[in-house]
């Protein structure tokens, strides 16, 4: 291998996120009647080490949009900076200091960005969950969830769990939704309190099963009025099971 190739290879290793470094794990979001609730724990892990505690993984962009992320923390901070500048440019473009990017606009932008970066073989190592209230054609704000993966796969579910949560609790979210629909009819939606309760339950399940999940988490709620990240909560969990488990070496 020639010297310039060696240099190129080292540059490639160091300058591209081909392995994430400090990562966040699952994000869970559900729509309810008139809004969306989202939850993520507050830790950035370095491999299996809980490296940085008390790190928020929810970003409040404006009064109708929250963005949650899983994956590389540094890449998300870069994205956060881009979005912030984008939102600022949008205000200037509209000539209105109160102009706000809608969640769908942010989601489209992020889809294009992540797909572009994966096409350059230089991915941003994140799964992004954009939640908010999106005005429809009549201007009525409707709950919105948009997902983008690091390869640019995008979709709009009514409820979602990303990261290891996709494997662990997507099904329990679905079961809850279906139970609710079976009781109250197909068109029914959760109330805000039911949605937040469901997220707390989901977070407990994630905490039991995902080694990278942390007991401290925070919930974000977007309604037609405002978007807010609530104060962090601490999960204790029920570890009574440990007494009966004799399979320790």
């Amino acid at each position: 291998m020639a010297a310039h190739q060696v240099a190129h290879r080292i540059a490639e290793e160091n300058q591209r996120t081909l392995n994430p470094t400090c990562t966040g794990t699952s994000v869970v979001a559900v729509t309810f009647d008139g809004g969306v609730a989202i939850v993520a724990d507050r830790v950035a892990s370095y491999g299996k080490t809980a490296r940085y505690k008390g790190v928020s993984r929810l970003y409040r962009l404006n009064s109708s949009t929250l963005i949650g992320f899983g994956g590389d923390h540094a890449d998300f901070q870069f994205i956060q900076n881009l979005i912030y500048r984008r939102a600022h440019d949008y205000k200037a473009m509209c000539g209105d200091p109160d102009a706000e990017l809608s969640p769908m606009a942010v989601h489209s932008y992020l889809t294009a960005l992540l797909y572009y970066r994966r096409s350059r073989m230089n991915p941003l190592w994140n799964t992004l969950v954009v939640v908010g209230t999106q005005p429809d054609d009549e201007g009525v704000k409707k709950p919105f969830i948009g997902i983008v993966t690091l390869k640019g796969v995008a979709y709009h579910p009514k409820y979602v769990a990303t990261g290891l949560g996709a494997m662990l609790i997507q099904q329990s979210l679905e079961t809850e939704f279906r139970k609710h629909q079976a009781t109250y009819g197909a068109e029914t939606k959760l109330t805000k309190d039911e949605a937040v309760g469901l997220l707390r339950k989901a977070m407990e399940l994630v905490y039991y099963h995902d080694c990278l999940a942390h007991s401290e988490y925070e919930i974000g709620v977007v309604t037609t009025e405002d978007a807010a990240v609530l104060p962090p909560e601490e999960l204790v969990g029920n570890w009574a099971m440990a007494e009966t488990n004799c399979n320790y070496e």
Partner: protein
Amino acid sequence: MTLSMDNPMAVMNAFKSAMSQVRADPPWRDAARKHGDRWNPYSFEGGSTAAIAGEDFVVVGSDTRMSQFEVNVMFREAEKIHVLNDSIILTTSGFYGDVLQLKRVLESRLHKYRFDYRTDMTVDLCAEMLARNLYYKRFFPYYTGAILAGIDEKGRGAVFSYDPIGCIERLQYSASGAAEPMIIPFFDCQVGQVTVSKETEKPALTLERAISLVKDAFRVAAERETSTGDKIHLVVAAHGKPIHQEFLLLRED
């Protein structure tokens, strides 16, 4: 030049360059390992799609499941059939990121065509354009099993089948995606009727029969193919009629 401790700087530089070389390209990383370590820009979300063309109609079907790592259902309502205009339907399987991009590319080309010529593009032209757009990415392909269907300039049903790098073929019926190896033989038997004996009664391909065949194809596929399921998205285009869409439930396991 021979290295000796009389010239410690040269020894140091030689060591440094050997070190950086071995770091960048360690001898234990053989060709197979290097290839395996490269980041894969593609992922596969599974699912299947199929289309049948008749005399003056075309029936397009797909499932709506989006799966992850071939084991996990990410989303049960993914749209894989894209109605591009009143006579062109794009249906896709494969890497969903490329599917979204390909759809965006085609939509913008169609938009420009409409702006330039004040009329919608026909499926014949769009078929050729899609082939060229796919081949343009020959060395970093859109990993999509695309099928383009619609009503052609003469009012007949048209199905164009593609491979990921733009090989194009006009067929009477086609299927693509995970259940392709199950659906194609079924259509060979029931639509192409190439696997039945001469004595067997060969019913004509009516619109009703084509719709039933597409539904049957997906119900069969959902029984045996894990990444196909949840819903059938059925799109029917007939000459002189608006495009009709419906969703039918499939197995969810």
